[in-house]
């Protein structure tokens, strides 16, 4: 028997097999129970021939395995190529929810202040006039106290007109240092229009500690404005008047749209008004028994809707309350 010729023939047959079935036929033909080579191996007597035959069988067996792998790989490739899809077809639909834009802004603000080491205090919404007005140094004749401006439940109970009553509660409950923000719904008797809804959202903050300065307020608000509107923002303070702060200021942020060149958003001034702030008027310390010679503080307030309008171009605040999914899904 010419082992070499047989092996060559078998190798050719393996190479020529183009399917698993053909390969199996080849295998049976050359390595099957009744094939020539196994027969010969069974009958072989001398060591030398045995090794030659064995090696030939091993090589053929390996060649068949290799060919099988190759054919399987080819087969897989063919099948996969047949399974090719239009990759631009839509993904499997899965219901998708979105946080409300104001919640997103609220969390962003909370996170900014958490990063500055402030607590988040959820003050109550129905307040006494003491906490909403009197303790904030608003005189009895202050226009905000008018039932034309605020929503009263009775003479002494009002839906909070700002989130600052929480500041008084906090000061009553403990001693400085205090670093807190409170965010949430506030209420004013406004006629709804594009820029007014009687319910809106504020963030108001308070820092009371030894040695708090106007400069600290400036540094803090610049950090907040940069976090909200970009690292290149600058802020400036304009003098203003609020009953609960002295000195009182209004912070402006440099316009993030035109970078100071002048556009409609900043009314061509390069600056955008962002709320109110100032050093806490020592008068507020009287009722909570803080010593103004020992501690000082700053307070500030911003509107969340204002941020939504400025930063996201929201044209009409009433839409925030319509809950139309087409709008909710935008943010």
């Amino acid at each position, binding site marked *: 028997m010419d082992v070499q010729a047989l092996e060559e023939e078998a190798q050719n047959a393996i190479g020529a097999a183009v399917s698993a079935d053909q390969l199996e036929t080849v295998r049976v033909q050359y390595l099957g129970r009744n094939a020539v080579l196994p027969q010969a191996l069974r009958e072989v007597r001398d060591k030398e021939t045995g090794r030659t035959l064995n090696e030939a069988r091993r090589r053929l067996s390996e060649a068949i395995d290799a060919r099988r792998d190759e054919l399987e790989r080819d087969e897989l490739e063919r099948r996969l190529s047949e399974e090719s899809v239009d990759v631009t077809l839509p993904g499997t639909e899965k219901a998708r929810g979105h946080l409300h834009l104001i919640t997103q802004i609220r969390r962003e603000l909370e996170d900014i202040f958490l990063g500055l080491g402030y607590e988040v205090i959820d003050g109550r919404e129905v307040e006494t006039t003491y906490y909403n007005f009197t303790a904030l140094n608003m005189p009895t004749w202050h*226009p905000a106290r008018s039932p034309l401006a605020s929503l009263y439940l009775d003479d002494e109970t009002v839906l909070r007109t700002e989130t600052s009553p929480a500041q008084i509660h906090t000061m009553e409950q403990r001693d400085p240092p205090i670093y807190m923000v409170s965010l949430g719904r506030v209420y004013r008797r406004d006629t709804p229009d594009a820029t007014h809804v009687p319910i809106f959202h504020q963030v108001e903050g308070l820092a009371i500690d030894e040695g708090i300065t*106007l400069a600290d307020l400036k*540094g803090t608000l610049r950090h907040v404005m940069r976090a909200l509107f970009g690292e290149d923002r600058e802020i400036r303070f*304009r003098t203003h008047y609020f009953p609960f702060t002295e000195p009182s200021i209004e912070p402006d942020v440099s316009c993030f749209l035109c970078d100071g060149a002048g556009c409609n958003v900043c009314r061509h001034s390069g600056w955008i008004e962002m709320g109110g702030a100032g050093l806490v008027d020592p008068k507020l310390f009287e009722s909570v028994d803080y010593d103004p010679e020992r501690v000082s503080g700053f307070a500030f307030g911003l509107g969340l809707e204002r941020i939504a309008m400025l930063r996201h171009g929201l044209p009409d605040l009433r839409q925030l309350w319509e809950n139309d*999914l087409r709008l909710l899904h935008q943010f």
Partner: protein
Amino acid sequence: MKVPISWLREYVDFEVPLDALADRLAVAAAEVERIVPVGVADEGGNLEHFVTGRVLEASKHPNADRLQLCQVDVGEPDPAQIVCGAWNFSAGATVAVARPGATLPDGMQLKRVKLRGEISEGMILAEDEVALGSEHDGIMLLADDLSPGTPLVDVLPLADHVLEVEVTGNRPDLLSTYGLAREVAALFDTELRPPPGIDPPVGSSEPVPIEIADSGGCPRYIGRAFSGVEIAESPQWLRTRLHRAGMRAISNVVDITNYVMLTFGSPLHAFDLDRLAGRRVGVRRAESGERLRTLDGVERVLSVDDLLIVDGDRAIALAAIMGGEETEVTEATSNVLLEAANFEPVGILKTSERLALRTEGSNRWEKGVDPHQAALAATYASELLVSISGAVLDSTSDVQAALDPAPRTPFRAARASALIGLEIDAQDQRALLQRLGFEFEGPDGAPDGEWTVTVPTWRARDVTREIDLVEEVARVHGLDRVPFTLPQRRELFGRLTQEQRLRRRVEDALVGAGYSEAYTWSLASDDVDPAALRLPVPLSAEHAVLRTTLSAGLVDAAAHNRDVGNHGIALFEVARVYLPSDEGLPDERWHVGGIVEGGYFVAKSAVDLLHDLVRVEPRFERTSQPTLHPGKAARVAAGWLGEVHPSVLDGGWGMFEIDLATLFADVPERTLYEDVITYPAVHQDLAFVVDRQLPAGDLIEAALAAAGPILREARVFDVYEGDQLPGGKKSIALNVSFQSDAGTLSDEDARVLREKIVARLAEQHGAELRA
């Protein structure tokens, strides 16, 4: 407040460009709305085209009945021929002329033209044509001593700028030109000229009696009687100033009171003295129901809080707000009583709010006017009445209660620096405060910068304490010079509470489940709880009651989305409800509510999710409530869920509402590890035949009780009712998993557990294990 810059410059010099002036004022004093050029454009030599002229001849235009044809000497060798539509002049008049080439404020460019066949070389000007006023009926007549060809800009304020400022409530002193000038002088460290006004000689007549019955409401009343007043139009400069300050010129006397109000911020009023019964005035509160017809022709019904000016027997003015019609100065007036008074602000604010009547006067009074300004105003108005209306000052009297002394306060410069966060030299602080009118006791060089400061009367309401002076120092020294620093922290506590973190997780879980967040109003038209808190004066019919449930708002939101054609509607809200409480303020509770297309089981899946989030096993019990489907409503310890009743919202909606404090009440502070990996679970399916009414939840509860914690999970995977079963029965198929953290369960262990369950279910619920 609108201030022509030329007027401001009468009292203070400043060299900075106008936009720099505006910027500085905006940052340090008052909001600047804008600074606008007014009048004739001062560019490209435009002003040269405006000159004075003398009319040499004026006759009817040969081809037009309504026009005059004039020859006007404009200072050139040949007179100019000008066609004019006005008839309030004739030959000899001195007039203002715009020559060809001039551009008028409205943009019109004058040329040499032919009008009805006659050449016209320019225009004889009415005040509105050059924005000096609003009058158009006649042309401006100028003083006759002006020689023709004089540049008009030397005679009239043709080109000017107007500064428009919005003043905060604490600075009524800035609602005046002189007050603004004082501020400008302080900010730019320049000279402020003395206030205008020199008292004319006073006659020897008996003063008009003044009787103040309410000196709290009117701490000061200066009354000055004038005779021989000639009522006429005001001179052009006065008309123009008022016009540019935003007020209408009326007649010389009224214009003078307005002009002086704008100068000093202390409003004045002029009465026709001859119409005052008894030629006397008084100040008192109104009687209830008393009536007064004010200048605007409206009959006002007064209340006892309203302050009145009265004469011998009736109300003649609503003090500080508006004069009365009967005693108003008219063309027939020849004797005038000038009132320069002071009124207490809060009462004025109340009256003006109650009557919804806000005037230039009330706007100033309600902020608190310095009573010392009344004297300056009286003096200046007297000077102008004499010089402009030819009047004689007959008598003057000044009735005043003890005016409050100017506040004094200790002031430490070091304290100001410390609070501002910027070291500002003590002497610089002193100097800038002095520029604002604050007076210092103690030597200049007090080494530690500790002084006693007296506040100028015009700031007495706003500045009473050291901290108020700190504000003055900060704003005048420059808020832009304050550095950016951060508080020096010695203690830290910036973290969310567990409740706040859980609230965020609730929101995030629902968002992950496909719900979008809605915001709905805290105020509803009505509420399921009849005790819900109502606004005595609702915002509107739809917004009258503080809600005790989020459901109404969510139903509206879902309906809105359905109506606009949105699909896949799933909404949630995390917000407060307001439960009436016996102890005053309502109990404000955070709720999460949701509404979703697809009915009960879709809602239940969300409720399951929320409980799973906090590792609490909810127990569902059938319930009923009017807004829910009677057969598809359940409650859990923390709230309820169900299918929305079709009469509330049709279409099979699931809805739920959970009280978050209740849901969070049993949340463990930390979740402990359970070994669910090491030893495999044994799963078995068990089907039981039970009464049709038996809730599957009861079956599972019994199974859990029977097997104990080793029964890790029991889940319903099939419910069958039908022919294969006896009537009134159903089959519930459970998939149960047994798992121990102590070892692998043997078949025998599983068999024992299974038999325990079967026995318990049989005993408790008559359940039969199906083969």
